[in-house]
């Protein structure tokens, strides 16, 4: 039964190679079918894993190199429900992203090949139980992303954003690698469960372990693109092909947070090094992202740039849930990441229908009447979902995170979440309002297939279905945070029962806050549409726009500087708080 575990990675990888071989001898429709079949296979295998993992974490040792006497010899996949669900989400979002590849008119087999490798790497990132494996999949995701980001080589925006993406993410990856080297030097193993056990055997403060934790957190935060590591994302969202942008917004930035919580709960939770400090750091960064990027999303005008800031703000909300360091927080983050990722993918599909499928410096393509209506409808529904209508999983996830934040002693973070939901919801609704009356101007005709709108609707429906998975998420999160039970499943030893599942559901207070956020977003969007800049004098808002534009002008040096400042600050805070 457990032989299913490597398939979500192996099948897309094999298909990627097959696509490269056959692309010159078969028609493009066949290439596209191979890619679609591989993605659907990944989705089915991941769904089967989600089902199987209900009875306990599935451990698969490659080549049969099982642990001897509690010491890991080989490399393992350790699949729990949350990991399998991550692989499933990656597959669903990739399937939706593939639907937009018609836009790449000269798309050769290489685009499909890259998307499939990207999917395999995302699935592997979710399923692996080995620290170095985690890094390899992390890099594989990144390299596929760099190539796709630079796909429109005729666009300077695309090339520049790919450079910024590649350099900033590589710095993050090297920080992760340094942390891995430090942990390996301390424990002599790369298996997550075994590192956790060995660190727990030596209680007491260990500054080296704290530094490793800080570097790992920063490395994954660069991938998650939260403030102040978000500069590369804003540029990439503006310049990359829609297929990458859908994947980025749908699942990739949440995977950065997944990397942090996976490593934290398997390795560091039992070592108690800088534990509370790391939670506080994550919540603070999450709140800064949610508020800062939420406010900036209303400042910028290009719709894709706007959605870039919305993405940063929402990753901040996911990060607040992760920073609560509780099962409730994890459950809320998982629900929000899945519910929001599908909505975000639907939003980008709506923008593609409106003709925003080329880099920002290219001419916009003009949609026909039907496609424009479909795009506006998707953006309007997506805007309401972004603000967190309880019908969608964004509403449930947000409410659960607010709950967890209040219990963990950060009630102010719950306020930040509501404000961020109002701001980002208004930012999306404004795009829909503005697009309603547009339609003339220069440019080619936009020729997306009619069923792309149906894909967007399906994504919104998935978000609504996820909203019913509260109990499932609470059980999955309880297993996820049970460090000792995870170590026992992977390495053996006396049986340990996982933690008790917390109560997760939409409380009356949470539902009221959700509705307030939706109403606030609608009022803010319509208010701003009626009177330009009602909240500040025109000179001030122009100055804000100029300053924000200058801060996000795509300078690689700035991005690297902020990464360095963030790394130093987080490392110092964690090191000082280790006693």
């Amino acid at each position, binding site marked *: 039964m457990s032989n299913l575990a490597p398939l979500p990675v192996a099948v897309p990888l094999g298909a990627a190679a097959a696509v490269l071989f056959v692309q010159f001898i078969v028609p493009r429709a066949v290439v596209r079918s191979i890619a679609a079949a591989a993605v659907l296979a990944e989705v089915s295998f991941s769904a089967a894993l989600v089902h199987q993992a209900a009875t306990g974490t599935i451990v698969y040792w490659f080549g049969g190199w099982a642990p001897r006497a509690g010491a890991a010899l080989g490399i393992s996949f350790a699949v729990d429900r949350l990991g399998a669900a991550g692989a499933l989400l990656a597959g669903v979002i990739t399937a939706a992203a593939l639907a937009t590849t018609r836009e790449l008119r000269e798309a050769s087999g290489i685009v499909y090949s890259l998307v499939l490798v990207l999917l395999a790497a995302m699935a592997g990132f979710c399923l692996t139980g080995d620290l170095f494996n985690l890094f390899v999949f992390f890099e594989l995701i990144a390299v596929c992303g760099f190539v796709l980001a630079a796909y429109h080589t005729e666009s*300077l925006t695309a090339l*520049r954003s790919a450079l910024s993406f590649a350099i900033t993410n590589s710095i993050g990856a090297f920080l992760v690698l340094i942390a891995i080297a430090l942990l390996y030097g301390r424990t002599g193993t790369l298996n997550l469960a075994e590192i956790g056990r060995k660190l727990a055997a030596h209680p007491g403060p260990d500054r080296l372990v704290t530094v490793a934790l800080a570097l790992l957190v920063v490395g994954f935060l660069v991938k998650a693109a939260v403030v102040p590591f978000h500069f590369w994302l804003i540029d990439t969202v503006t310049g990359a092909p829609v297929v990458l942008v859908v994947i980025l917004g749908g699942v990739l930035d949440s995977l950065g947070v997944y990397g942090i919580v996976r490593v934290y709960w398997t390795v560091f939770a039992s070592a108690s090094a800088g534990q509370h400090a790391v939670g506080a750091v994550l919540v603070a960064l999450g709140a800064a992202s949610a508020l800062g990027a939420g406010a900036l999303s209303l400042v910028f005008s*290009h719709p894709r740039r706007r959605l870039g800031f919305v993405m940063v703000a929402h990753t901040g909300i996911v990060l607040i849930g992760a920073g609560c360091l509780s099962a409730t927080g994890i459950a809320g983050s998982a629900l929000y990441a899945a519910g929001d990722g599908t909505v975000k993918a639907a939003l980008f599909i709506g923008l593609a229908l409106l003709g925003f499928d080329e880099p920002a410096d290219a001419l916009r393509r003009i949609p026909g009447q039907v496609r424009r209506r479909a795009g506006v409808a998707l953006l309007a529904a997506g805007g309401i979902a972004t603000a967190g209508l309880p019908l969608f999983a964004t509403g449930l996830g947000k409410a659960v995170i607010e709950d967890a934040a209040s219990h963990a002693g950060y009630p102010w973070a719950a306020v930040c979440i509501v404000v961020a939901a109002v701001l980002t919801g208004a930012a999306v609704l404004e795009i829909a309002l503005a697009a309603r009356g547009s339609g003339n101007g220069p440019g080619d005709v936009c020729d997306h297939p009619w069923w792309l709108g149906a894909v967007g609707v399906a994504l919104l429906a998935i978000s609504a279905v996820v909203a019913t998975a509260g109990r499932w998420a609470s059980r999955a999160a309880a297993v996820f945070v049970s460090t000792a039970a995870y170590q026992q499943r992977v390495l053996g030893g006396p049986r340990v029962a996982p933690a008790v599942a917390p109560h997760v559901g939409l409380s009356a207070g949470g539902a009221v806050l959700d509705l307030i956020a939706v109403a606030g977003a609608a009022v803010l969007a319509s208010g701003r549409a009626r009177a330009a800049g009602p909240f500040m004098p025109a000179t001030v808002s122009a100055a804000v726009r100029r300053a924000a534009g200058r801060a996000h002008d795509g300078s690689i040096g700035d991005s690297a500087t902020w990464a360095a400042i963030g790394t130093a600050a987080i490392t110092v805070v964690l090191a000082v708080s280790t006693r």
Partner: protein
Amino acid sequence: MSFLPYAVAIWLFVVGLYGIVTSRNLLHQIISLSVLQASTYVLLLAIGFRRGAAAPVFADIPANRAAVDPIVQALSLTDVVVGATVTALLLAIAVQLHKRTGSLDPEALRRWPEGRETEDGARGLSDGRATHGWRPPTG
């Protein structure tokens, strides 16, 4: 155990980062990234090093002879592959940028053209009419 390799690793990291932050030439910037990455090689190999131990190839040495840690060497090798991929890709992008702009100065690329787009575009969006940021940029 000597602190020298660790000091070298930190130095390479810092000097590479300084190069990336201050560079005015894309080739210089990309090579700075490689320098930064070299710190990870040094760190990995330093962690696995044992004085007086042999290379971890047991074909021609006794199996009980002390050897340096082969795992970190495997990690470094993977790291080298990653580095080569990223560097090749970055250089390809730099070539494309040079073709388009005739320049390799990363600072010359900033404020293109979004800087302007934010300034005149946002007003159009807030009054709810058509033009926001959708007019083709003139830069």
